[in-house]
């Protein structure tokens, strides 16, 4: 039986989930529980050389060589990552850290553990992505500042404009070309570099 709509948090509704663990009793339980959330679950076994990067969540065994099978760069994940830890041997903690998972699931696990892990991984992944988006935006803003200041200096020197006239020129160009002020400034800086 599936969960009723509205019972599950938004983070785990309508997901594509990849499961790369052995399909024994515990593996079956995992797939069944995930399907109860109405997720579309794909099972891959053995773990492929390169994991696909089109899923919302990846559940995969922590095993030697896993880091190389993860297709994205550390710090730029494409999917929320849950590592499944076998009871033996003791886990390679360094590898665990380097795979940068959003959550872990210890074999054998209960039905509840599957859902709590799923919510935790998705929530952590989403927050991380929002913060990275905010940082990217701030970086863009700083870059724009730098470009505008450099373009202003170029206009003042080459076109003999006052500071306020230089800003005004760039704003007018941006408006008439319907591009951002930063793009106008970057174009001025680039063309200056081309001209030498």
């Amino acid at each position, binding site marked *: 039986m*599936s969960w*009723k*709509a*509205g019972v599950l948090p*938004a*983070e785990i*509704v309508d997901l594509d989930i990849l499961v790369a663990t052995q399909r024994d009793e515990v593996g079956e339980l995992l797939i069944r529980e995930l399907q109860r959330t109405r997720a579309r679950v794909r099972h891959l076994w053995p773990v492929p050389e390169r994991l696909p990067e089109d899923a919302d969540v990846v559940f995969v065994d922590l095993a030697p060589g896993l880091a190389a099978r993860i297709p994205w760069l550390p710090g730029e994940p494409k999917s929320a990552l849950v590592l499944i830890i076998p009871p033996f041997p003791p886990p390679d903690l360094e590898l665990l850290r380097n795979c940068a998972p959003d959550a872990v699931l210890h074999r054998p696990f209960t039905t509840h553990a599957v859902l709590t892990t799923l919510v935790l991984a998705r*929530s952590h992944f*989403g*927050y991380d992505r*929002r*913060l990275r*988006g*905010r940082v990217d*935006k*701030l970086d863009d*803003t700083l870059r*724009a*500042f730098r470009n*505008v*200041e450099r373009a*202003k200096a170029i206009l003042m020197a080459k076109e003999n404009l006052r*500071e*306020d*006239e230089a*800003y*005004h020129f*760039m*704003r007018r160009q*941006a408006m008439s070309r319907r591009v*951002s*002020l*930063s793009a106008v400034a970057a174009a001025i800086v680039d063309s200056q570099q081309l001209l030498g």
Partner: protein
Amino acid sequence: MTGRPDQTSAPWRVGVLFSSSGFMAVIEETQLRGTLLAIEEINAAGGVNGREIVPRLYDPASEAAAFGHFAKRLMVEDEVTTIFGCYTSSSRKAVLPVVERLNGLLWYPTLYEGFEFSPNIIYTGAAPNQNSVALCRFLMDHYGPRFYFVGSDYVYPRESNRIMRELLRANGGEVAGEVYLDLRCKRRDFLPVMRDIRESAPDVIFSTVVGDATVDLYQSYADARFDPKLLPIASLTTTEAEIRAMGFDVGEGHVTAAPYFECVSGERNSSFVAGYKKRYGADEPTNMCVEAAYFQVHMFAKALGQTNSMDTDILRPMVLGSTFDAPQGRVSINPGCSHADLWTRIGRANRRGQFEVVHQSVNPVLADPYLIGYGRSVLCP
């Protein structure tokens, strides 16, 4: 399985956080009214996709920390994802980490000092390039280059004054004095300020005083018998609501920059003002904060009608880039920074407590919360 989400008639629940008590109540109460008026209009027209919007209201009583706690309660206990609220920057900064961590959406209908971008906030009040820049130019042209800064002691006044000081300095103006008073200051605390103003003889008093202290500032000014024709108080926050609280005669002649005043012409505004007065009383003025609180709820409802989902990851992309025929004129949410592109207007208060528009932009002004396109220059329109 029955009960697919698009077949339910369950209401859309939203959170509302404005103070009905404490020292910010005068203005925040009007934002609450603007919010509720819009919700009532939407529900009277059949709701959103046949479902009513039901607000969950809390009164944070002008305490910044309480805004954070109520935001948490709204998202965790009331299971709300969208919140309309906040006036002061301190309260917004208290809510920000909560909506960012839990992936909510805060709609913030207040002018502020800029230099912020949260993926979980929609900013519908003016950023500095939409009010401070034009105000500085107007004041220098009409009154003179020496500004005296008086503000409440918190983040917004200090940041606003930092921007205004840069604008002044780049254009040959100067700061004649600068003073900050506690948000809960008393009337008598303005006496030494008036004395200092008389001694330093500025051309303009630039006020970032907010809340109840606004009334004390303007009344102390009137008691000191200054003349607004020669030395006006200029503000980004003094609206029709504060003018009414201080008395029309006390407010007359002072200057405010805002995207909206009650007297803005046009059919859209006439029907908004009429609706507001019908709901809250014939002598209740609208103001920029009411208007932003009002139109942002309509923009929310419009986006919700398209997504039929309150999930922030689905709703927010629909909000970005959307436009709305607001009482102030056509506005849009700038997809680059989630701030609204708004109109710039400068008003001078008359004897009837209304602002007469003495300057207005030709088009909506694109939001530039980091003042990238302005540097330190304001002389060119």
